[in-house]
């Protein structure tokens, strides 16, 4: 799977339109991922996103803290993607440190990259309907897939 010149151009243009909302969208995509694919929450026990906990401390600091952490993490993911967009010609080199992190420390099962990628697409579709044409949808899906491949490339 290779990103064509058109794909790169589509992704750059779309990401450019997103601008300063990237962090917000990263957080929303994470929230959607946790909601639709609850098994993904297992990677964030320290966020304490469990439904029970939220109910017990309905409007408490704990929930606020968990949400703040999720939002901060969403920003982190978005920033990494912004870096990836700027270096689409050589993702393996640009993302080498993150590849190492995911392979040796985080070890997130590869299936989860598909869930997050899908929720990133859904988030962008919601917020930027004009940009989310079929061709751009395809380019974004390829781009997220390429990033996911790089992040899992050193797993074994």
């Amino acid at each position: 799977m290779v990103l064509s010149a058109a794909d790169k151009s589509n992704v750059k243009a779309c990401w450019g339109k997103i601008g300063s909302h990237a962090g917000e969208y990263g957080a929303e995509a994470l929230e959607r991922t946790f909601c639709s694919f609850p098994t993904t929450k297992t990677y964030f026990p320290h966020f304490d996103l469990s439904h029970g906990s939220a109910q017990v401390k309905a409007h408490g600091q704990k929930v606020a803290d968990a949400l703040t952490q999720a939002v901060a993490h969403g920003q982190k993911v978005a920033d990494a993607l912004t870096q990836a967009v700027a270096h689409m010609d050589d993702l393996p080199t640009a993302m080498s440190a993150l590849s190492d992190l995911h392979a040796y420390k985080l070890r997130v099962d590869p299936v989860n990259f598909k869930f997050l990628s899908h929720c990133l697409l859904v988030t962008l579709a919601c917020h930027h309907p004009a940009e989310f044409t079929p061709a751009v949808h395809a380019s974004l899906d390829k781009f997220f897939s390429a990033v996911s491949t790089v992040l899992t490339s050193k797993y074994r």
Partner: protein
Amino acid sequence: MGFLSAEEKGLVNGLWGKVNVDEVGGEALGRLLVVYPWTQRFFQSFGDLSSADAIMSNSKVKAHGKKVLNSFSDGLKNIDDLKGAFAKLSELHCDKLHVDPENFRLLGNVLVCVLAHHFGHDFNPQVQAAFQKVVAGVANALAHKYH
């Protein structure tokens, strides 16, 4: 609790009531063929699929998309027995059409993207989660009779 909670059924039916099934069907099938071009293997007789524009405006794609989504819509009326509702179609897709069930999962996710595209903020995380359950259920029901 059946397949979906009462609240999830409410969310799904609430949104589905506002969907133009014919149009969304064509859009979803078109995007499937654009985003995952290998799915075009099932539609060799559909004519011009050479570009995103050609695919999205192809009348056979629109007609077939309409057919598929109307069938999905009928299935939603039997949400607590999707396997029963889609038993015959499952046999057809295995024995006659020879469609790898992975394609049902791909189409389901494309449909979710199309709904997000149409409904924007109304397609919030809770609504999405309910629909993810539905498309997964339909995909599994369509794969159920495979052998």
